């Protein structure tokens, strides 16, 4: 069962990545191309996923939207990994007061409801894809930091770390050659789960008009548009909704089955 989940989710994730990367070559139309004659047409052989209120091809817009979602997912998670690994590593390595201060900071960050924190921050900044990536990254590192700290703390008592210490291995090398390689597995798994969260968060923000700004397409802002035509243009909400669902589900499944794999080894 787990093997099946891993394989299928991994292939879906790969497929989505390929679709996003090759969007300019795969999409049948220019996503910005307005065609007044083709307004709100249902899916057909000409437009596989139908057209929107300005006659733009929905399939092309979704392929370009996938790029946005994945870019946000990867970059935001990259930032959160970087921040989380730094904070978790320092806390877990130093222990004592430093650990206490950093972990209370982490707890403080965890107290804020992320979505509203992001809304508050965006209110002061101009909503752009770069700001979104940075803000999501800077508000989602806490899980990584905690996980890595816990791994470090349990590794500190292992004999090979003590052996390295008695060989006089310097702190930085101890962290990157001994502690990190042995602690990073679960952290990467949680990062993959984090991608799902970031994709969802970006869609939500774009849906509220605080993320990617039209006319640039994103799954979230296609959905915003679609809500006005819900009764007579089902395809406008169905396809981007399905895209979000499948992407998030695939990343979650991939993360979960990788987690099982990492745990089983232990």
């Amino acid at each position, binding site marked *: 069962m787990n093997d099946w989940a891993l394989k299928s989710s991994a292939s879906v994730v790969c497929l989505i990545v390929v679709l996003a990367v090759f969007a300019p070559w795969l999409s049948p139309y220019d996503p910005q191309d307005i065609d007044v004659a083709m307004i709100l047409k249902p899916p057909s052989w000409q437009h596989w996923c139908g057209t929107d209120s300005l006659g733009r091809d929905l399939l092309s817009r979704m392929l370009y939207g996938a790029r946005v979602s994945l870019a946000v997912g990867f970059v935001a998670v990259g930032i959160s990994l970087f921040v989380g690994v730094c904070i978790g590593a320092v806390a877990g390595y130093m222990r004592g007061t430093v650990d206490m201060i950093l972990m209370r900071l982490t707890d403080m960050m965890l107290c804020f409801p992320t979505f509203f924190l992001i809304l508050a921050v965006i209110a002061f900044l101009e909503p752009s894809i770069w700001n979104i990536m940075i803000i999501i990254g800077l508000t989602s590192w806490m899980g990584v930091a905690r996980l890595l700290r816990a791994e470090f703390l349990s590794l500190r008592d292992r004999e090979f770390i003590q*052996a390295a210490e008695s060989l*006089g291995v310097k702190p930085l090398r101890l962290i990157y050659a*001994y502690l990190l390689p042995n602690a990073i597995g679960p952290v990467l798994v949680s990062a993959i789960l984090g991608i799902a969260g970031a994709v969802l968060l970006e869609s939500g923000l774009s849906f509220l008009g605080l993320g990617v700004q039209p006319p640039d397409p994103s799954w979230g802002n296609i959905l915003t548009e679609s809500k006005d035509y819900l009764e007579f243009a089902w395809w406008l909400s169905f396809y981007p909704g399905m895209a979000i669902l499948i992407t998030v589900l695939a990343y979650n499944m991939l993360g979960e089955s990788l987690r099982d794999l990492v745990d089983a080894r232990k």
Partner: protein
Amino acid sequence: MLKVKGLCKSFGQGGLWTSNSRLLRAAVDIDFHLEKAKTLAIVGESGSGKSTVARMVMRLLHADAGQVVLNDQDITHLKGTALREIRRYIQMVFQDPFASLNPRMRIGETVTEGLRVFFPHLNKSERLERAEKMLAKCGVMDAMQRYPHQFSGGQRQRIGIARALVVEPKVLVLDEPVSALDVSIQAQVINLLKELQSEHDLSYLFVSHDLSVVRHVADDVMVMFAGHVVERGSIKDVFEHPKHPYTKMLLDARPVTHPKYRQKDISIAVEVEAVAESGCVYRLRCPFAKDDCASLEARLVTDDRGVACLYPL
């Protein structure tokens, strides 16, 4: 070579609500000295503090009080670079061969690690060459490019020994180096250790609970119970004429292979696990305990042959 004076360590016990209510005294006033090319064994049951002493000597654990003197240099409070420098002279072999090697690091890198730190003037190929030589000397071939999980327990322990010896230390702390191995492998590793000792004039601090192994390798022995040294002396004296009831019990509890020497029962084994808070630490388990054992703390008197008992056997 290595002198230890009055070494103490206690650990706080108890949880959130009962903090500081009880201190576990893992090492109390430990004194010993280890000569060049000699082996001193520390024996005792688990929890007797023998590993704690080894770790304090290695400076992996900070002592509450006392001194560790290596080559006439007090190393108890060294830090940073100074601490790193003395580590070249004292190395450690760990108990668990499955936990003591970095699973994500090739053996070659693990064994050259010490050389990177202590012999920075060597270039990479010289380091690899030295590591390979030391591995070969310890009986491990073609290991450089492989990972720890590709080796058996005995081989891993040999790798651990090579890692410690490649920096040419003077003192080797061995924390139960063979207790995780099969008996046949134990003998091989013990023989290897003895060979290496005579070849490099190494001093061994040998921590073990296995008296048969200790008898085989050590010159002197120190018996610990509940953080206290209860008896000390040469192997011959202690094994043939144990004076402390605890030492006697340990020796009697050894499995005997020859039926002729097999005892009907172990005369002075006691079920109680308690450790006395005052007076003699062993008195609650001691079959010979008398009233004044509760009030008077027996101290080790002489330096070379000592017993901490008011009524030695």
